[in-house]
């Protein structure tokens, strides 16, 4: 069975759909396009289709990855065009490429992801200095508060080793953080932790709903 990988973007209000919504959405878009996915055997057959990484509800993205097997062979560009015709506005298939089948799934191969976090500066807030990035990264530990799954308590964690790169810019009274963070099975840093740690560091109290987060790409 042929296997393909799609790269797609997610923009606009559709960012408010969840990961499970996206699974349904793609399944139906393939159905509408007349592209037959390969199904698993068993009592409850499901299509062989998997996202590299779930995208958090509310995040936009420039480069999500989806891997799937089809029953028949298609031209990869045809898949891109057909699926795009059947997508709601906000989802755009940028590329589709055939790939060799291998044991490791797309999800298992992911190791990092690049994010852009846009934080508006409140009126009258002192503009942070230029050396901000250096000072932030120079901390021996970069701590963020993370919710414990079991107890629900907020516990400090050190995310320093999971930050692969960080750029900070201030444009139009907004702080733009562009960061590559660990996003693999052994180490995974949510951009929420970076946001939390950074705003604490500069002493900024923000309302979460004023912050935009976009995933720019996923690295293998």
């Amino acid at each position, binding site marked *: 069975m042929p296997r393909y990988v799609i790269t797609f973007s997610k923009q*606009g*209000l*559709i960012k*408010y*759909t*969840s990961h*499970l*919504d996206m699974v*349904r*959405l793609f*399944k*139906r*878009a*393939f*159905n*509408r396009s007349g592209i037959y996915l390969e*199904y698993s055997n068993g*009592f*409850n*057959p499901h299509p062989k289709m998997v996202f590299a990484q779930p995208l958090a*509800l*509310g995040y936009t993205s420039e480069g999500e990855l989806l891997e799937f097997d089809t029953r028949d062979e298609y031209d990869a560009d045809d898949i891109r065009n057909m699926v795009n015709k*059947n*997508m*709601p*506005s*906000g989802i755009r298939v940028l590329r589709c490429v055939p790939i060799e089948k291998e044991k490791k799934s797309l999800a298992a191969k992911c190791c990092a992801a690049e994010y852009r976090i846009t934080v508006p500066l409140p009126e009258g807030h002192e503009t942070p200095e230029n050396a901000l990035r250096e000072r932030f990264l120079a901390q021996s530990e970069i701590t963020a508060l993370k919710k414990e799954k079991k107890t629900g308590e907020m516990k400090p964690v050190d995310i320093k080793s999971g930050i692969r790169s960080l750029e900070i810019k201030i444009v139009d009274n907004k702080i733009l953080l562009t960061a590559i963070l660990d996003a693999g099975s052994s180490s995974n840093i949510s951009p929420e932790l970076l946001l939390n740690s950074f705003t604490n560091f500069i002493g900024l109290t923000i309302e*979460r*709903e*004023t912050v935009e987060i976009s995933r720019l790409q996923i690295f293998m």
Partner: protein
Amino acid sequence: MNLDRLLKKVEKPARYIGGEVNSALKDPREVSLRFAFAFPDLYEIGMSYMGMQILYNILNSHEDFFCERVFAPGLDMEEAMREEGFPLFTLETKTPVRDFDIVGFTLQYEMSFTNILNMLDLSGIPLKRTEREASDEEYPLIVAGGPCAFNPEPLADFIDLFMIGDGEKLLPAICRLYEENKNASKEEFLQLACRLPGVYVPSFYRPQYKEDGTIKGFKKLYSKAPDRVVKCIESDIDDLPLPEKPIVPFIETVHDRVVVETFRGCTRGCRFCQAGMIYRPVRERSTEKIVSYAKKQLESTGHEELSLLSLSTSDYSNFEPLVNELMEYCSDKNISLSLPSLRLDSFSFKVLNELQKTRKSGLTFAPEAGTQRLRDRINKNITEDDIYGSIEEAIKLGWKKIKLYFMIGLPGETYEDLDGIAEIARRIVDVNYMINGRAGGRFSVNVSVSNFVPKPHTPFQWEPQDTYDDFVEKHNYLREKLKMKNVNFSYHDSPVSVIEAVIARGDRKVGKLLLDAWKNGCEFDGWSEKFDIEKWEKAYGSSGVTPEFYAERRRNYNEILPWDIIDPGISKLYLMTEDQLTTTTGDCRDTCNGCGVNKYTECPNMGINGRKEEQ
């Protein structure tokens, strides 16, 4: 405050974003009429309702109309909207509801009525039509339709115009009339509209009451308004369009599938059932059309499930060929076919066995009453032999979960009938032992009991409802009786059933109850976690509306009923006769029982008034 920030604060924000595949997108500046279709419950509920998709499709097929959708926002969204002063908006263009020409509410169940008031309030539209009339501001025309419009009186203070009956042609006709008379006053428009069949304009009638609180009569305030509003009937539903491209929701809805209506109406004549009365006569869609719509809908949505819609699936006259054809189509496409409310005969078993080959979900029976005597009284034409025969067959085929639906508080019920419910459960467990042995593995019988609510335009419309205390006592009795191995018992909340009965058979005075309940904070009353009896009790007190008068009282056959202003087609004489019978009345496919609906339309089963051309 923009919508984007609002959406970051709430749960399931995709309820409010619109933009789903197959939703309508038009330039509002290029249409001559904007209609907001309002469903007074959450998105997930409303998007499972086929009627909305049908009417949405019809209105939007007119190039110069633009129909958009709006649902009741969740509590968190409502709070955020109120905090920010963000008005209720439609999904398609995010336009405030109050900027529309017409806002149309669908009335599916009584317990959604407080949500209607809440949605008007969230839109910044005064709730009462007299307040809107007295205001210098222009507000949209507020209309309503759906099954609960068959007793429009409880909402008469809030709604400008009701549509009774089939809406496929009536709704666009109303819109066209409105569009053609945009320069006329609201009053002038309503005077024109009330001449259309099925249109009830409450401001043209003033109910007058006797000293005992019952109705003395309706005083007509506009002489050309009809004395009684005859429901709008479409004689041939085969010509009525279904959507070929239904909207595909982003989030999971209650019924996440495509649905094709096979027929309207029901010939069984259960005496408690309002749908079985108000949707008469039975009208079928051709097999050809059903199959064609099913295929088009599946292709245009990519859905994985197809369902058929009617009041009694297997009563469709060409049922076997239809199901065989659909099963064949679905089987090699990984599409599951779901057939609700099947009558369990041999063919149905064959089909169900095929459909649930791998995973047998529960099998549902609705005997409704525990003894043959009471089943005959309510005209539920099903015998003990039918029940146990089907159960035996089901258990032999491997079903492990049997669901039973009953109603309590039915007219003529005694505790013997409650014993009968327990007896049926016990015998089903025995049948299972007989077939599978004591060590036969997991097996369960789920007994679900709901409380009888007398509904307008049914033979039981005069009957008293049990009191709250009666219901509680009966639930307690059943709980003890049903303490059996492998049997589970569940029942509906009694206070809700009482309020449902008050509203269902309410007159205009019940409008005050609704208003006061809403002012006390009532909304989403159909959701048990949100329902608050104390707020309703407070509203009973302030409005003077009592369950004693509206729910528990036996009404006299001579009494003028609030909903007598509506003519559902069936005659009152037929309803009275049926109310008094203790024996069954046959299926009207076999013999005409004289309900009288073919006074206004042709009944496929001919009937008491003969063929239409002979009249």
